[in-house]
């Protein structure tokens, strides 16, 4: 539990970012998850990404549902407001929070049970609406807190720790997100921090719904032979289509790439993504091709990772609703209340 105090002091030489914060300023409470849990690696990657982007920690709202993954917002960004809401309902709570104040950064953390089972509907509709958020699913194919039942992302034919073989088809959240119109779709692996950190950074900089499915093995209930979410299985079947090397501001990209090996994507806020291609034919701007490719690879048992799709022109819910630039939660009586003279006119129209 979280009553163990974490010492605040740190080495004076610890690197600082543009805001003068060290990595330690992005940490949270001590994790209560199992030793070796993939989710803790994702927590570390979020800390790293926020530090690298020089985000003021208190300008992030971290919102989750219920489950092991949903506990993790307590373990990073201690100076952010967090909200551990209702099982499967993180997307609606995040949507409402985002409507109230468009100036904060919204980080939604969920699990495969939370997003693909009980909360499948809310996952889908928040993506459809283009809520400006980074939606991370920490996907281990299993219910950890209730001791090892399959979730809806478990592959058909995979075996549980108790030896039960899953007969149901798996839901691929990445394929769903693509189909539902997400502006940014990526998949990564909790064991591959160098791939994951830049993806989180790019997702945070993205305007609109950015979805990242992170395969995150459950060391307690889903890391055995016969599982398709174990560390070994994922390492063997990880089919990375690209590596996101750098994210820059408006500065020129200085790294040299051989021609045709890199795809540069400029995002809405001017930030640029340099995607080093591993699969030379993969185009991260082609939604339809991405969907086809995913289906083909999935049929072969491969887990496709990388930045799978990005729409640099994507819009968000606030642009659809044409809301004012000022956060709605800051509008006062003067801005919101039409006053008695207007009411008199309304009364007159009702006689």
């Amino acid at each position, binding site marked *: 539990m*979280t*009553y163990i105090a974490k010492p605040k002091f740190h080495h004076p030489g610890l690197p600082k970012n543009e805001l003068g914060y060290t990595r330690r300023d992005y940490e949270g409470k001590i994790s209560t998850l199992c030793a070796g849990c993939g989710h803790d690696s994702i927590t570390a990657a979020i800390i790293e990404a926020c530090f690298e982007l020089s985000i*003021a*920690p*208190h*300008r992030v*709202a971290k919102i989750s549902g219920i489950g092991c993954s949903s506990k993790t917002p*307590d373990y990073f960004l*201690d*100076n*952010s*407001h*967090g*909200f*551990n*809401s*209702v099982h499967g*309902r993180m*997307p*609606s*709570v*995040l*949507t*409402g*929070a*985002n*409507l*109230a*104040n468009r*100036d*904060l950064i919204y980080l939604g953390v969920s699990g495969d049970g939370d997003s693909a089972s009980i909360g499948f*509907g*809310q996952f*889908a*509709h928040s993506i459809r609406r283009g809520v400006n958020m980074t939606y991370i699913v920490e996907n281990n194919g299993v219910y950890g807190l209730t001791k090892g039942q399959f979730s809806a992302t478990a592959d058909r034919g995979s075996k549980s720790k108790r030896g039960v073989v899953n007969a149901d088809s798996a839901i691929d959240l990445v394929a769903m997100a693509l189909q539902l119109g997400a502006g940014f779709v990526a998949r990564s692996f909790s064991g591959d921090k160098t791939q994951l950190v830049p993806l989180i950074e790019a997702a945070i900089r993205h305007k609109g719904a950015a979805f990242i499915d992170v395969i995150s093995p459950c060391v307690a209930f889903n890391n055995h032979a016969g599982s398709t979410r174990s560390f070994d299985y994922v390492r063997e079947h990880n089919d990375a289509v690209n590596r996101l090397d750098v994210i820059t501001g408006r500065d020129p990209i200085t790294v040299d790439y051989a021609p045709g090996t890199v795809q540069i994507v400029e995002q809405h806020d001017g930030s640029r993504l340099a995607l080093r291609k591993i699969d030379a034919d993969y185009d991260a701007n082609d939604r339809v091709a991405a969907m086809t490719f995913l289906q083909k690879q999935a049929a072969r048992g491969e887990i496709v990772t990388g930045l799978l799709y990005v729409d640099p022109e994507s819009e968000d*819910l*606030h642009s659809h*609703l*044409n*809301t*004012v*630039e000022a956060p*709605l*939660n*800051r*509008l*006062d*009586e003067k*801005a*919101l*209340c*039409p*006053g*008695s003279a*207007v*009411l008199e006119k*309304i*009364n007159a129209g*009702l*006689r």
Partner: protein
Amino acid sequence: MSVQKPISSVNDFVVRFANVNGSGSASANELFARAILRHGVPVSPRNIFPSNIQGLPTWYEVRVTEGNHLGARGGTDMMVAMNPQTWDKDIASIEPGGYLFYDSTKPMPASKFRPDITVIGVPLTAITNSTYSDPRQRQLFKNIIYLGALCALLDMDIKLVEQLIGEQYKGKEKLLSSNVHALHLGRDWALQNLKCPIGLRIARADKVGDRIFVEGNNAAALGAVYGGATVCAWYPITPSSSLADAFTAHCKKLRHDPETGKAKYAIVQGEDELASIGIVIGAGWNGARAFTTTSGPGVSLMTEFIGLSYFAEIPAVIMNVQRAGPSTGMPTRTQQCDLISCAYASHGDTKHVLLFPEDPAEAFEFAAQAFDLAERLQTTIFLMLDLDIGMNHRLCRPLKWDDSRQFDRGKVMTAEMLDQGREFGRYLDVDGDGIPYRTYPGTHPSKGSYFTRGTSRDRYARYSEEGSVYADNMQRLLRKFETARDMVPRPLQANAAKPTRYGVIYFGSTSPAMDEAIGLLEQRGHLLDRLRIRAFPFHSSVASFIADHDFVYVVEQNRDAQLRSLLVNENGIDPVRLIPILHYDGTPVTARFIAGAIGDHQDQLKVTPLRKVKT
């Protein structure tokens, strides 16, 4: 031949229109009601409609009431029978001596009528067919033609109706003149061929005053605009959808930045009620005033989130336009049946604040106030409307707003307060009223952040499963509910002319029927003090009112006496002293029903002692 004398009444009768829904009759019928209002005569109309779009029976009832009795009366003095499907039932429902108005184009056998009523036939189809060729025009203008004929029969001032049509079609000259033409077609036919006026008449009066004519849903939506709601998330459900629609329409007119044209509001139609309340709670957590509109089935779906709002202390407003349950129940019929499900919504020990407006004017006031209460108390506030108030036009006092009024944003700790060194504990009861301070996300770089959760936590929002910590928090929530008791609208008491041992408690849309019933009961010699409850938790005056009377009738529109249960449960009152008067067939309660039920009970109480009988 009938010996029944035709009903004769000026400005006090009920006209009922039997139509087929989707036939365009609604606007003509509403025009009829408004035209009577323009005579200075109060009306109380009610739509009785099916859960259907086209083809099923629908009725529109207009109670003409110079005496200002705005509740449903029951019975029909004049039936405008335009629907062959319901003909037999409609004819049977006419009061003896009443009137039947029908389309006489096609001859009807005598067996289809009643000898004790006055039958008025107007060949509406023949008139329309000889005037119009377009089928849609034929249908729409037929409605205006019968309106014209009614004007002649009821002796209405045609100029007032023309004026109304003029206002309605302002700038649309072609529609205006064709409607006026149709109106005169009907009126002229009636004047030439029928004995006008009949026994029922409209005479000019001065009984409307400055009152307005508005639906409760519309007024509540305006209340949300005036109360500063910026986020509305909702899922369509009868009878609440028109509230969200009205909010959308008002915001389009009143809430756009004049310079940029941008919206100072966000309205999202959720994928279901769970998403709707989730959005409301997310927005409330983040400091925006947010609400959802729904009905009973929606509340059932929302209950998990309502518990979160209670326990994690997040402001939310739910406008529940009640309809007859349980399950899908009767979606287009009225009831006051969600008191228990809202008062104790969600698992575990929970209690919520309920507001009971009696009419659109109070719906406006309470809707605006609900946002202040939600932020002050940091919890869910239910605005308990029902179909009768929500979806019918009701004559009520004009809406009022005090321009000096400020939103009560509740206890919010700012960056300045944190920098001044104010201690912040999210669940710390600093003032003894059970209400802690909160911070909005993003307030301060290093102070005031906290983790919101539905799990148990200590006063500083740290996770805890310690029994004493949990109990401490639950006790504070009770203290907060006690604080709410004195913040919510107080009950209103009206005493009988002479002291009496009997009282009556009622709430919400029962109000006009109750007021009228008091008069009827007085005529029977029964005096009652009355108390209109306007909110839950109950103010202390409710318990004293009950204590001051031997018996108290509790009038409500549900089967299980839900308000009575709350009174017994929350105030420890002996149930024997609370006599339930229950009306729950989905129609609005009437004065006749209340006076009948209470009167019969009172008569039973008045046992004449045996010795008096002997002497």
